[in-house]
């Protein structure tokens, strides 16, 4: 019993020190969503438990290591006892109660975080290698930037067009995978005006690290103004070139083909139309309408030297109508 007081005192002191240390570190970026408040609250609870359990085990271990070390000249054996059913029972049942309690808290908070809101607005987040795209179905336009009105519950419908991606804005705390063939739902109510970054959290290939999109949480007035501007832009988009430019973004061409002459994964579109292209089989063709059409529909037919085959999806012929393909070609023609 002579060890009981010092050990207890050390555990208590250590618990407070560790908990205070964790608090002072500012471990996470500033929260910016209603759901995040629940998440952060649970994190706080977890950190307190961690501080206590860490101190409990480490203090007792270090104490034993120091106090029960073999002194010089002592050749005896340790105390002889095989265990204690009471103790084992206690440290089975108490942790079991604690984890069930945490399970219960986990359940209620999960229900809070995933609950549908009556006035929520749906936004479709479409992911492709390696770009994000946001469709605002209520207003009929799509955007590369995610604008959100502050205080407005949002339901994100997550879609993936090729491989797995995951939708994560650290400041919003919650994340969900975008799975091909499914529509996963993520609910976020942003509550803090500011600029954030949406990142892809599921390894999705070569440019995974760079798969980001800007997120702007703005006041409701600014949001309405932005929507009006996007709607107007949408109306102006009715030329083939403009539709092509929109397809360049919405179909993910942007992920691999640059507009400024730099090499990403596929050939740049700058100055592409009418230029000679050297192919892997050694021949050279002029990039005319037919060539461009074929390159979109059957990308492996004529592969430009220096670029890998099999990277571009083979199914654009099914995804795009001929009109759309011609719009894209019209757009490419404008890129001198």
């Amino acid at each position, binding site marked *: 019993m002579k060890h009981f007081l010092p050990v207890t005192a050390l555990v208590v002191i250590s618990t407070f020190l560790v908990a205070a240390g964790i608090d002072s*570190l500012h*471990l996470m970026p500033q929260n910016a969503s209603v759901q995040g408040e629940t*998440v952060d609250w*649970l994190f706080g609870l*977890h950190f307190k438990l*961690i501080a206590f*359990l*860490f101190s409990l*085990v*480490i203090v*007792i*271990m270090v104490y*034993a*290591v120091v106090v*029960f*070390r*073999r002194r010089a000249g*002592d050749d*005896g*054996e*340790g*105390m*002889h006892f*095989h*265990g204690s059913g009471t*103790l084992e029972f206690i*440290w*089975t049942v108490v*942790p*079991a109660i604690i*984890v*069930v309690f*945490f*399970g219960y808290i*986990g359940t209620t908070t*999960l229900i809070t975080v*995933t609950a549908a809101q009556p006035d929520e607005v749906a936004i479709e987040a479409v992911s492709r290698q390696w770009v994000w795209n946001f469709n605002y179905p209520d207003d009929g336009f799509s955007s590369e930037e995610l604008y959100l009105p502050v205080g407005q519950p949002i339901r994100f419908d997550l879609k993936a067009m090729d*491989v*797995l991606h995951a939708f994560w804005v*650290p400041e919003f*705390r919650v*994340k*969900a*995978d975008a*799975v*091909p*063939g*499914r529509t*996963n*739902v993520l609910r976020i109510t942003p509550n803090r005006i500011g600029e954030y970054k949406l990142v*892809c*959290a599921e*390894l*999705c*290939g*070569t*440019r*995974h*690290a760079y798969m980001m999109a800007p997120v702007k949480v703005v006041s409701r007035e600014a949001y309405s103004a932005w929507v009006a501007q996007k709607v107007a832009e949408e109306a102006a988009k009715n030329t083939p070139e403009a539709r092509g430019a929109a397809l360049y973004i919405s179909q993910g061409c942007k992920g691999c083909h640059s507009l400024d002459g730099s090499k990403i994964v596929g050939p740049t579109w700058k100055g592409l139309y009418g230029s000679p292209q050297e192919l892997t089989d050694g021949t050279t063709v002029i990039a005319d309408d037919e060539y461009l059409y074929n390159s979109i529909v059957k990308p492996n037919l004529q592969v430009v030297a220096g670029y890998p085959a*099999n990277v571009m999806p083979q199914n654009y012929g099914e995804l795009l109508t001929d009109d759309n393909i011609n719009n894209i070609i019209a757009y490419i023609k404008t890129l001198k």
Partner: protein
Amino acid sequence: MRTFFKLGFVRGLLGQVLGTLFGMGLVTGTRAALGYDPLWAAEPAWVIGGLLGTLGFMIGVGALTDWAKWAIGVETPMHHGAPAGQPEWTRYFAVDLSHKVIGVQYTVWGIMVLLVGGFLATLFRVELLQPGMQYFTTDRYNTLISAHGIIMISAILLGVGGMINYLVPLMIGASDMAFPRLNAFGFWINVPASLLLITAMFVGGWDTGWTAYPPNSLRTALGGPLFFLGFYTIGISSIVGGLNLLVTVFTMRPPSMNLFRMPIFVWAAVGTSVLQLLATQLVGLAMLMLIVERSLHMGFFTPVLNEAAIALNSPPGDPVLFQHLFWFYSHPAVYVFVLPGLGIISELLPVFARKPLFGYKWIALSSIGIAFLGFLVWAHHMFTSGMSNYLRLPFMYATLIIAVPTGVKFFSWLGTLWGGKLTYPTPMLFVLGAISVFLLGGLTGPPAATITTDLYLHDSYWVVGHFHQTFFGGFMFPFFAAMYYWFPKVTGRKYNEALGKLHFWLMLPSFWVMSLGQIWAGLLGMRRRIADYDPALGVQNIQVWITIAAFVIALSILIGLYNFIVSARSAEVAESNPWRSRSPEWQIPSPIPEHSFAMPLAVVGEPYDYGLPGSVYVRMAPAGAGD
């Protein structure tokens, strides 16, 4: 030179090369016969080549010889000792049926694979020192992290195999494992598998991580299928190893050794083996499905349907199915890695505390409890995959419950330390280090287990930190503890205590720095598996610390290996029981003779009655006596 070409290992390598070439020729020849153009199709050629190369290795090394002889009805008596007319050392490079040789083979090959995996880690740690790409392309980086993952996993499985194969038959007084030939097969299949994994890095690599999630893994480069094949082959080793151990423990104990008088490590080995035997099949299946989906376009995991499938009204494939199959193995695999390590901790603590293991039965049953619960928690790796709450919640509860048996282990270890006469030679230091590190892993688990907080932590660096803590605390530290502890038994010589302590005091603090850095980076919002990070996250300083710590860990491991190699060759001869252990393997000479126990064992006491005057655990009894 003649000796060199007679080594099974060398013949195996030749066999693998020939088998690979034959497989490639087979594919190309078939394509020629069927009139396909072009003749060379890289993927089927490499897959069939890899498969036949593995077979070629196993034929070349001689792991299949006895079974082939059995098939044609030739007697195959057990062979003991080096191959006829060859020096003693050659048996370590050939198929040998002694579990002691196989244990050493597992361990040494495991350490070599570990060095490869560690080397890859140092490479990409350098890349992460600063934002932007400095040394690699993103593709090369992705290959490095993927290869680091799977190569380390195979290294850990090899280390686990080494400890189990060497120790368990000795601890239960068995002459050998139940199926010595299967045992040798189980080790040697790892060698072509490791080579497949390393080859995969050089034929295009793959960028899926070790988890190989489709559809990305269906589109990745040629390294992908070779990685699937290598993973599958490692799985075969796990299955036969687990099977062999279970039979050994259940049938080859002396009659006087009941289940609760086995050394505690044997319990851990049983838990591990059950998981290996049963769960591994599922990841094998998942890998096989990936291979056939890639080569035959069987749409298990792609939601896209062709016209014929639409006409059939066929449902689409689903990428999430793969995750279920994969994690049904790969979560229990974590317990395959850590249970033996936790067993080592429980085994060594009483020896260095000079008192009985606190709560033997509770620790033993907690191993089985963890193994059992391990089957019920796989979907916590998929909390963000879009499962409904009704599915997610039971997995959350099951995951949290695992904290209970794990806690029992921790508190029982503290109970074992309490009131002992503790000494701190290197193995004990590693055991204490393991407890502290595994504690970190245990404490960073629950926030990832409650779904609400996991929605933040999932796929972040927190997870990276968490599993490195569990693997270092549950495997690496106990593994080195075991290496130092049984070194005198295996080699008959003493290791260098000063170098051992240097190893420990470099490795422990640097690991703490590394893993706490990873945890912190994760909380700041850093994702896993990214080649480049956003400077705005403010994690660059942390990355520098992690990288420095990683290099110190690498240095400390090299010091440890230097110690082992030099000491094994020229150090002082050790006494047969330097730790005054009660376990059977310490009651016989070091190094252990070919037939370990001259006389059958009789268990006459409790395994961990340290400090009880006059009591012994086992007695070597002439046949028929005892019990």
